[in-house]
């Protein structure tokens, strides 16, 4: 018995050390990217791991302006924000109805949405591209937003159904007894209670849209319609024929990372817990 505890204690100590090592590596990586984005391109190529000799923000001005990252950031915010908003607005009433109504149709619909979770994006990429180009919605923020709304449906409905099932129905009963209509009950009684879930769903969808690369790569092409990941890919692709300014590129990487860092330090715990609650119920 005693021996086992010591062995376990040792294992635990090794584990703890390993965790802290990985944590340190993660932090160092972010720090390195940040520092490198302040150095000049040729300098980075000569030695990838130096400190910025004279920290300069020149890379950021170049990236935002000539690299097109400013416009791309705007596009990312628009498509990510719009699609997440629309997705949650569409999914919330649906998930609520699915969670509250117990019938064969309801479980069939729940299943239909859940099945979408198992469809990898590459199945949709060709059809969506063909379809959107037929109606002239390729290379447009609107087209990309619609695609993201569609992609978001299964998970958002699934997550929110979990959330609504966890909310006690007592409040609604009271509201109905007070003579409130279904919409008023939903908007004024249920939604405020489910706010945490809605925000989680919004944030998760926003993060997914922010980093989404395959569809953005396929559906956009002109430089003022790109989202951030595509701007980065296109910037890297231009290294053939004209060379690549690594300083500017690292600045671009930071522009993609910064909102994620900010978002996560603000709402990280909420995102993680929200997810667990949503998928666990």
């Amino acid at each position: 018995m005693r021996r086992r505890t010591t062995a376990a204690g040792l294992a635990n100590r090794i584990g703890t050390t390993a965790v802290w090592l990985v944590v340190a590596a993660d932090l160092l990586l972010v720090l390195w990217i940040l520092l490198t984005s302040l150095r000049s391109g040729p300098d980075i190529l000569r030695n990838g791991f130096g400190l910025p000799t004279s920290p300069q923000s020149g890379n950021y001005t170049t990236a935002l302006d000539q690299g097109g990252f400013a416009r791309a950031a705007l596009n990312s915010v628009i498509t990510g924000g719009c699609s997440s908003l629309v997705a949650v607005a569409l999914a919330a009433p649906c998930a609520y109805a699915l969670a509250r109504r117990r019938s064969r149709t309801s479980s069939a619909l729940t299943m239909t949405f859940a099945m979408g979770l198992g469809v990898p994006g590459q199945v949709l990429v060709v059809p969506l591209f063909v379809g959107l180009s037929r109606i002239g919605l390729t290379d447009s923020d609107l087209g990309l937003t619609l695609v993201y709304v569609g992609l978001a449906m299964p998970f958002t409905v699934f997550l929110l159904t979990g959330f609504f099932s966890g909310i006690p129905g007592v409040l609604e009963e009271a509201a109905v007894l007070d003579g409130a209509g279904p919409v008023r009950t939903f908007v004024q009684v249920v939604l405020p209670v489910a706010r945490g879930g809605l925000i989680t769903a919004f944030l998760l969808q926003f993060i997914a849209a922010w980093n989404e690369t395959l569809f953005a790569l396929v559906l956009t092409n002109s430089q003022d319609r790109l989202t951030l990941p595509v701007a980065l890919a296109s910037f890297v692709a231009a290294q053939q024929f004209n060379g690549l300014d690594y300083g500017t590129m690292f600045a671009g990487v930071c522009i993609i990372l910064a909102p994620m860092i900010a978002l996560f330090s603000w709402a990280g715990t909420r995102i993680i817990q929200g997810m667990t609650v949503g998928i666990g119920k």
Partner: protein
Amino acid sequence: MGRTTNSAARVVGAATAAALALGVSACGGSGSGAKADGGFTYWSMWRADEPQAKVLKAAIADFTAATGAKVDITWAGRDIAKKIGPAIAANQAPDLWDQSDDKVYGATASAGQALDLSPLLDQRIPEENVPVSQVIPAKYFDMLPKDPSGANHYLIPYEVVTNAMFYNAADPVLASAMPTPPTDWAGLLKVCDALKSAGKACIASEGEDPWSNALYFDYLLNGAGVNVAKLAADTSGATWDDPAVLTAAQQIEQLVRGGHLIAGYDATKYPAQETNWANGKAAFYIDGNYVTAEVAQQVPAGWKSASILPPTAKTPDANLIGFAIPKRAKNAAAAQKFIAFFLQKKQLSGIATTALNLTPRKDIPAPAELADAQRALEAPAVRLTFDGVSGAWLPKVLNENYLDLWHGKTTAAQFVAKCKADQVAYWRAQG
């Protein structure tokens, strides 16, 4: 009861509509369509911040000033090659686009979707009073594969690229190892040996990039009279049994086993070795002549760019970067007018002076770093890289196998056998 349902439906519907409308209005739409008054749409392979884009932008501004035609430009970047086909399919093709010849051929011309531009050859270049055919040498068109209708004027080049071994002529170690350029493969190996004993690597190579490394193989096959496109087109794979192919593979093996490739070449990622080369850690680096522009910011002072073809090469290779017009273009005439306009010496010179690259016009001097490359291109005939082999063959048959040879994991004989087998499988999968 009915009332509640309806109101519920109405409210939810309104909320949905509002949400969608919010999305729509905030997200905006896009526009593209036919132009009037001599205008046209142009999708460019360049990003707006690249020097070529600056040259083109200035020319388009001049064109608009001279003709009043408005040009709608999309700076699409290199990915345009993947987008153009589907765009044509959706009837959204631009009136003008540009890419390298292989991409133009593969994405449009091979499917009969590129406009035959041979009438343009007779068009006069503004202010110069000579036809286009007089400033663009015919050899550049002669090397191109023909589209289904037998035409090979689906691209009008404004930049020419040739692949060669680049080096720093001001490097004293290299100068003593190579008093005169080698004329055969043994000569090159001798130069490499001399460099090795002087403590310098002979060849810098991005080990993970099959394309640039296989250029040596391409030039060797060319020297031995083997046409790569014919080699690839053989569905039985029997052409791989040609002893000349094996010899070429063995010559590559000599470079690898002789230790002439820079140390660590198989454990890095582009551009690590290009950087090493630019910093004098190896003598040669094979690539397109745009490499001088790529490393322009890194090379030390006093660097003097020069180039040779791999010895034994008979015909220099060339790649064209130029304009193409989709068959479905709505304003093809206007686009052709601009092509002729851009080929004026005063416009095209920007490709040499601003973008530091070669143009197809002989009367535009190359930038100093590319003098050797321009001289090589003066050969009476030129050929496409890999003899213009079709797009999917390289990644699916040659690339992996070649890298195995290049990394010293397979012998020349194994390489040839593997290529042959993979080629048979490749053609079977084409169905």
